[in-house]
């Protein structure tokens, strides 16, 4: 007995060391590139003059530019959250729990919007609801014989509209998932107790979903508040400034005061994001009811009866206005010669398309984006796989630390991440990677790592541990067993996770705007400059190309995970 037990024990200790090294490595990376810069940013907010002072915070209130940006952000984010939930809940219910026609199609469509970069929406709505020449404005004006355009996109209302149409899918996905996980017999028990379907929705379904609805609302709020792409394209021309656009303006100005103001705004944004993160993981997350259901988890499908066609038409209309119309607008813009005229044979050109595939600067930026997104995704997936293994298969002490840091990182607004990296990584503390692709890659990893990690974690939690134990019993060390057994089984999810880091990094705008240099411009930034300064058509061609890529990747992800997973 002794002889057998001893070597086993030793092996166990030896493994422990490797795991510790791995965890240590990931933690060190996150400490240096995420925690330290963020802490430094907080420090700067209070020690802007070298000694402790609340002067910078005071400027938040006293300086109207700052205060307006702050209130605009809170107002637009709150309204988007409200409208987002008001859209997402009924939508999730109709698509998930009723006999609506074309449910699958609608679901895919709404979920796919999640992968589309938000600035594409801004570009489209700019074209549609421009106060003088917006296509939709003109259209409505003609129909109802109005003498003034009904909508002005360059306003708080316009900003809320575009933010809502682009962030409600976050809520839709969260709520749909929670609805799918709910044991249908919970609702049946209510029916058999004498409750009508509607009363059941109110007294059972909704209260049980409440924590998820709150989580979804918070997610929409913080995403809208941290968004830069939409307010920069439609807010700025209308002088509707938000925290994010202000921060970037200040950084561009580059003065010491400007940087201090940027830091303070970033500090507030970070605080909001952290509170939201805390509430949704530790307060709401705890309350989320995990319902262990029996074998039959076929959801109850509510028969809409006479309303079936009505709701289908309603949803079709919604899908057309919110999803199809903006995409079509961007696509048609990319082939128009004169944007003042309508789409006709003599107003069509493929010049812009030719340009995006031939112009050197665009290709160079595309390459930059491709390289940095690929590296971020690959490195991110390596970390994700190891983390997933540590989280699910081991109870090594400290495995929660990197998990926690990764969650915080991804919950931190992009603007804040980028700003903190600029301040901490420009040589002041011995590391100078500003103006290189590395800083871009690190920023992407901090922001998007969680997406990849969650995918692998959920895949791995579905693999029985005995499969790995069998490989260990056959003499393989854990790393070997991981490589031979676990990896092949989770490969589809790993690929899916890779794309979930790659895609948003590839078309990233916010962080790139702050971190780019002349040699490291990215696709998102290129698109933004074309949209704002040079040629909306070229920007639209780029956006359409990205859209097509999104659709292809989404289709691929669906295939890879046998429909279980898209987004």
């Amino acid at each position, binding site marked *: 007995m002794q002889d057998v037990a001893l070597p086993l024990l030793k092996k166990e200790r030896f493994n422990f060391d490797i795991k510790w090294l791995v965890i240590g490595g990931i933690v060190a990376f996150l400490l240096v590139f995420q925690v330290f810069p963020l802490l430094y940013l907080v420090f700067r907010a209070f020690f802007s003059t070298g000694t402790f002072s609340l002067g910078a915070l005071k400027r938040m209130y006293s300086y109207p530019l700052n205060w307006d940006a702050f209130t605009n952000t809170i107002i637009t984010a709150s309204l988007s959250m409200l409208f987002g939930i008001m859209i997402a809940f009924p939508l999730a219910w109709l698509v998930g729990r009723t006999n609506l026609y074309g449910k699958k199609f609608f679901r895919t469509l709404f979920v796919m919007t999640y992968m589309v970069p938000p600035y594409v929406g801004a570009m489209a709505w700019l074209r549609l609801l421009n106060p003088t020449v917006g296509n939709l404005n003109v259209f409505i004006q003609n129909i109802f014989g109005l003498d003034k355009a009904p909508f002005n996109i360059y306003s708080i209302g316009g900003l809320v509209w575009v933010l809502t149409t682009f962030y409600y899918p976050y809520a839709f996905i969260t709520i749909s998932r929670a609805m799918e996980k709910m044991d249908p*017999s919970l609702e049946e028990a209510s029916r058999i*107790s004498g409750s009508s379907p509607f009363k059941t929705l109110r007294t059972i379904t909704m209260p049980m979903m409440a924590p998820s609805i709150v989580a979804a609302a918070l997610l929409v709020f913080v995403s809208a508040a941290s968004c830069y792409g939409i307010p920069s394209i439609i807010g700025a021309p209308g002088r509707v400034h938000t925290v994010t656009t202000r921060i970037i303006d200040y950084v561009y100005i580059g003065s010491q005061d400007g940087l201090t103001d940027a830091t303070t705004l970033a500090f507030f944004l970070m605080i909001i994001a952290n509170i939201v993160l805390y509430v949704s993981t530790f307060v709401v997350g705890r309350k989320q009811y995990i319902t262990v259901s029996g074998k039959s988890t076929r959801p109850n499908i509510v028969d809409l009866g006479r309303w079936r066609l009505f709701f289908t038409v309603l949803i079709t209309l919604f899908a057309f206005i919110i999803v199809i119309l903006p995409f079509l607008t961007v696509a048609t813009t990319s082939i128009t010669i004169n944007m003042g005229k309508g789409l006709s044979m003599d107003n069509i050109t493929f010049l812009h398309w030719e340009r995006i595939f031939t112009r050197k600067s665009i290709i160079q930026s595309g390459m930059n984006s491709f390289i940095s997104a690929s590296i971020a995704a690959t490195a991110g997936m390596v970390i994700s796989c190891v983390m997933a293994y540590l989280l699910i298969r081991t109870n090594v002490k400290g495995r929660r630390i990197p998990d926690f840091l990764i969650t915080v990182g991804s919950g931190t607004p992009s603007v804040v991440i980028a700003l903190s990296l600029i301040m901490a990584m420009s040589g002041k503390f011995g590391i100078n990677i500003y103006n290189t692709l590395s800083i871009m890659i690190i920023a992407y990893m901090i922001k998007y790592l969680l997406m990849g990690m969650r995918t692998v974690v959920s895949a791995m939690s579905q693999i029985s541990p005995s499969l790995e134990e069998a490989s260990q019993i056959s003499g393989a060390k854990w790393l070997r067993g991981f490589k031979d057994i676990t990896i092949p089984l989770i490969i589809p999810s790993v690929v899916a996770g890779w794309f979930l880091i790659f895609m948003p990094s590839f078309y990233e705008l916010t962080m790139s705007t702050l971190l780019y240099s002349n040699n490291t411009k990215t696709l998102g930034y290129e698109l933004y400059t074309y949209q704002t300064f040079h040629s909306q058509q070229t920007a639209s061609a780029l956006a359409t190309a990205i859209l097509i890529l999104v659709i292809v990747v989404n289709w691929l992800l669906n295939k890879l995970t046998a429909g279980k997973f898209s987004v």
Partner: protein
Amino acid sequence: MSSITINKVTKYFDKVEVIKEFSELIAEKEFVTLLGPSGCGKTTMLRMIAGFEKPTSGEIHIGNTVVSSAKKFVPPEQRGIGMVFQSYAVWPHMTVFENVAYPLKIAKLSKSEIKAKVERVLETVHLGPYSHRIPSQLSGGQQQRVALGRALVSEPNLLLLDEPLSNLDAKLRESMRFEIKEIQKKFGITVVYVTHDQTEAMAMSDRIIVLNHGLIQQIAPPTEIYCRPSNKFVADFVGKVNFLKGEAKIGKIELSNIGQSIPYQGTYTGKVTVAIRPENIVLSPSDPNSCPGGILEGKLLAMFYLGDINDCRIAINNDIIRVIAESNTFNTLKEGQNLSLGIKNILVYEEKSE
């Protein structure tokens, strides 16, 4: 008034026929069990009675009311039924009290009435002290009682239970059988009970409906199901059985794989299957007259001592026969020895020639 009349009910999911012409009358205060292997359509049948599924054709009456027919469909909330779900379906956002009180609240009873009734039911299901707990603080067995309490609180005349005990451990399962039976007697209600566990069905039911592939195999009280199973499926599914191939002749059956014959007075001729329950075989009978089914000679292959019984395998030519003997025979018998088997009772099923 809660007899159930099920008249020529069929159910298709897409193109698949899950229930095939189901007709039966379940009397008031009767305890009827739907028994069959997993996937045979038990839950589907129960859900049609509850109103969660619409029959593709046929009618269901509860008492004198048509609840489901081609023209009429009463939704579940108007059927006045109590139901216990396999997953319990206890609402996690309500306390035990609120869960059980829910049906009464829907029925708009007064607060004091609700309190009195809920407390009485909680007493019945032994959950009195737990009324303010939330479900996640309860064990599986306790959650199951909450579900039972909720189903009983509005004093329905009809109670439906879908494998209510299958998620409990063995000990608790046996005591709950008894409790459910007691409650049924006390409240005087009609019960339709679904299970795939034959001992559960035997122990609790007045009558058992055996289903296979959506088709009724036999409807009878437990003793008859066990002693006179109407076909090989029922004989095999309920209890243990040895099947032996044979050829029926006048006065005897020649067992083909065994090469011996047993006496037979029945009417079949030609190919048959003989079914013998292991406890209907006596090892080395002292009185051959106590074995009207005849005597076979074999060799003891193996024995398994199970405490209360001695589970034996006896080889006769190409067949192996299972015999359940008294446990003390484990010490007197030796593996490998020759034995005679006295058969007390046989069942004979005609083999349809194709």
